[in-house]
C-alpha cells in the first residue's frame, strides 16, 4: 500500500504534463477493470462493469500537481520560470527541483541576504526575484539541457516517519489517486457501473473534471482529495480546516460546491455504522473537481472525501497513513452499501 503511494508521489506530473502519472496508474489498474481509456483532455478513465442497474458511480481524483514551467533562459544560464497552480512563494527559496523530461537537477535560487537591499529583506520573497539554477554557465549550455515550456517539479522523496506519518510532494492528489487504485483492486463488483476517473489540470481550474462530468454523466460522484490541514502552532483551533489523524474529512461546502446532502448523510452513516473515524472539513475556501462535476449536464449528486495533508502545495506535505487507510475503508463501505 505504502509502496504505491511512494511511486505515485515521486513521479512528476505538473498540470498539463500528467503523462507519466497516467502511465503509472494505467499499469496499476488495467488488470482489475474492464476497460481503460484516455480522453481528449488527457483524463484517464477506468471502467468496471457492474452486476445490474446500469447506474453510474464516478470516483475522481486528480493526477496533476502544482509546479513550474520554464519560460526562458538567461545569458548566464539561469532559467526563468512561472508557477503552475497555487504555491506560496515563501516555500520556494533553496528548494531542489527537477527540470524537464529527463529530470535535470536544479535549485530555486535567489541572491544572498547580504546582497539584498534593506527593503527587500523586509518583504516576503516574490517569485519574480527567483530563478532556477541547473549548474549551467551559459545560455548555450543550459539550452542543451532544457527548453522553454519544460515542466519543473519539486525534487522530494517519499519518507515514512514519526507516528505513522508520511512526507512527500504531491499528496494533493496522488493520495486520492492511490486510494482509488486500492479501491479498484478490491475484487468487488457492484450493482452499478464504476467509473474511476483520474483527472488533469485540477490545479489550474478544475478543467479535466469539466469534460469528465459531461462525458461520464454519472448518477453520483465521489471526489477523493488530499486537502489542507492547518492544525499547527499559531493557528486558532476554530480555524483548523481538518485535523491530522482524525479520519477522512467529509466536505459540507467549499468554494466550488455544496456537497449533496443525501450523499453526505450516507457517508456519515456508513462511517458511524462501520466505526470508521471521520471529521467534517471546516472552512469553505478552495474548490475541487466536484465543483465542475456537480454542474455537468442536468446536475450530478456529488460529495468529497478528503485526506488531511499538512503543508499542501509544498515539496513536503505530511499525511497520516491511518487517515489514508480509513479513507479507503470509508469509501469502500459506502460503495458496498450504495444501492442505486
Amino acid at each position, binding site marked *: 500500500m505504502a509502496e504505491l503511494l511512494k511511486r505515485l508521489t515521486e513521479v512528476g506530473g505538473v498540470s498539463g504534463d500528467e503523462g507519466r502519472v497516467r502511465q503509472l496508474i494505467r499499469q496499476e489498474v488495467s488488470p482489475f477493470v474492464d476497460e481503460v481509456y484516455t480522453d481528449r483532455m488527457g483524463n484517464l478513465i477506468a471502467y468496471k462493469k457492474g452486476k445490474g442497474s446500469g447506474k453510474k458511480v464516478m470516483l475522481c481524483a486528480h493526477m496533476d500537481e502544482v509546479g513550474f514551467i520554464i519560460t526562458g533562459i538567461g545569458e548566464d544560464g539561469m532559467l526563468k520560470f512561472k508557477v503552475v497552480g497555487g504555491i506560496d512563494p515563501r516555500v520556494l527559496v533553496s528548494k531542489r527541483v527537477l527540470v524537464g523530461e529527463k529530470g535535470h537537477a536544479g535549485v530555486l535560487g535567489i541572491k544572498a541576504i547580504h546582497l539584498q537591499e534593506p527593503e527587500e529583506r523586509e518583504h516576503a520573497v516574490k517569485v519574480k526575484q527567483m530563478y532556477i539554477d541547473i549548474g549551467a554557465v551559459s545560455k548555450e549550455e543550459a539550452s542543451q539541457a532544457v527548453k522553454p515550456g519544460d515542466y519543473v517539479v519539486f525534487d522530494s522523496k517519499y519518507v515514512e516517519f514519526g507516528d505513522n506519518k508520511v512526507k512527500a510532494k504531491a499528496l494533493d492528489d496522488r493520495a486520492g489517486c492511490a486510494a482509488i487504485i486500492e479501491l479498484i483492486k478490491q475484487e468487488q463488483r457492484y450493482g452499478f457501473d464504476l467509473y474511476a476517473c483520474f483527472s488533469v489540470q485540477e490545479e489550474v481550474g478544475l478543467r479535466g473534471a469539466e469534460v469528465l462530468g459531461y462525458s461520464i454523466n454519472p448518477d453520483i460522484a465521489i471526489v477523493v482529495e488530499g486537502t489542507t490541514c492547518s492544525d499547527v502552532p499559531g493557528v*486558532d*483551533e*476554530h*480555524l483548523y480546516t481538518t485535523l491530522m489523524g482524525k479520519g477522512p474529512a467529509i466536505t*459540507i*461546502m467549499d468554494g466550488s*460546491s*455544496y456537497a449533496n*446532502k443525501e450523499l453526505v448523510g450516507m457517508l456519515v452513516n456508513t462511517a458511524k455504522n462501520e466505526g470508521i473515524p471521520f471529521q*467534517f472539513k*471546516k*472552512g*469553505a475556501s478552495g474548490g475541487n473537481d466536484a465543483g465542475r462535476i*456537480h*454542474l455537468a*449536464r*442536468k*446536475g*450530478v*449528486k456529488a460529495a468529497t472525501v478528503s485526506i488531511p495533508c499538512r503543508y499542501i502545495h509544498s515539496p513536503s506535505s505530511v499525511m497520516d497513513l491511518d487517515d489514508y487507510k480509513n479513507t479507503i475503508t470509508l469509501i469502500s463501505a459506502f460503495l458496498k452499501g450504495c444501492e442505486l
Partner: protein
Amino acid sequence: MMKELLKKLTEVYGPSGNEEVIRDVIRQEIEGFVDEMRVDTLGNLIAIRRGRGKKVMLAAHMDQIGFMVTHIDEKGFLRFTRVGGISVGNSINRRVIFKNGVTGVISYEGEITDIRDIKFERMYIDIGASGQQQAESMVSIGDVAVYHSTFSENSGRYVGKAMDDRAGCALLIETAKRLQSSPHEIYFVFTVQEELGVRGAKTAAYALDPDIGIAVDVTLTGDTPKSRPMAVKLGGGPAIKVRDVSMLAHPRVRSLMVSRAQEAGIPYQMEILETGGTDAGAIHLTREGIPSGVLSIPCRYVHSDSEMVDASDMENGVKLMLHILEGEIEI
C-alpha cells in the same frame, strides 16, 4: 395580495443549499396554476405550463445568503463561514435564526476600532449557550443560519430579509396565477444556489433547453443619499437589464421587454449594473447559447437583513411579464 405573498416568502428559511422549506412553500403557492412540477437533481423547482409556442424559461432564485457553522468552542460560541455574499458591515450585532428556530447574535472578538479591520475569522455567533455541550444540542457543524428580521410596510414600500430574491419568486408566482392565455410553453424555474455562483440555473437551463431565458432578480438602486450613481430608483418601474458582470442582455430580448412595456404603458427603467450577476449569466451560455434577459426589481440595501422594494415596481413587473408571455415572441 402580493404583500401577503411577499411577507410569507421572505419570512421562510432557505439559505443556499438548504432550499427545501422555501421550495415546499412555493410549490404550494403555484400548485393548480401550472400543468406539472418536478424537482431536479440540484433541487431546482421546475413548474411547467404547457404550450405549443416558444419555450420560455423564467428563473427566480429561492436561496438567500447565510452563515454556516464551522466550529463550536468550549464556551458554546459558534464560528462560521459565509454562504454567499455576506458583508461584515451588514452582520455585526445582527440577529440570525437557524432552521430549527434557534436564534443567535453575531458579534466580534474584542473591540471594534475600525470596521475595515474586521475579519470574518474573528467573528462569532452567540446562541446564548452556557457551554459546548449545550450549544451542540442546539446546532451542529454545517447548520446554516439566516438573518432574523420581520417583514414590514410603509406606504407601499416593503422591507424584509431575502427580498433578494423572494421578490422575484413572488413576481413569478403572481404571474403564473394571473396568466390567462399564452401560446408558449413556460417553465417557471425556482433555482437553488444562485448566491454561490448561479449553479441551479446552469443545470436547469441545460435540462430544459429553452428558446429564451428571462431571470427575475433584484437590482441595486442609485437613489439614496450619496449612493453610487446608477439610473435605477425605487418606484420607477421594473428595470430592464442592459448588462451586469455576468452578461450582456440579448438585444432582442431586451427590445422585446421594452416594446411590451411601451405598448402597455407600463413604466420601466433601463439597468446597467456594475457589480454582481444573475441566473441569466448561466442560462445564456447553456448549450448552443440561449437569448436571455433580466427583469429586475429595484431594491435598496441588498444583502442586508432589511432589503427594501416598492409595491408598484412589483405590480408593474407582473404586468410586464404577463404582456411578454401573452403575445407572440420573435427571437
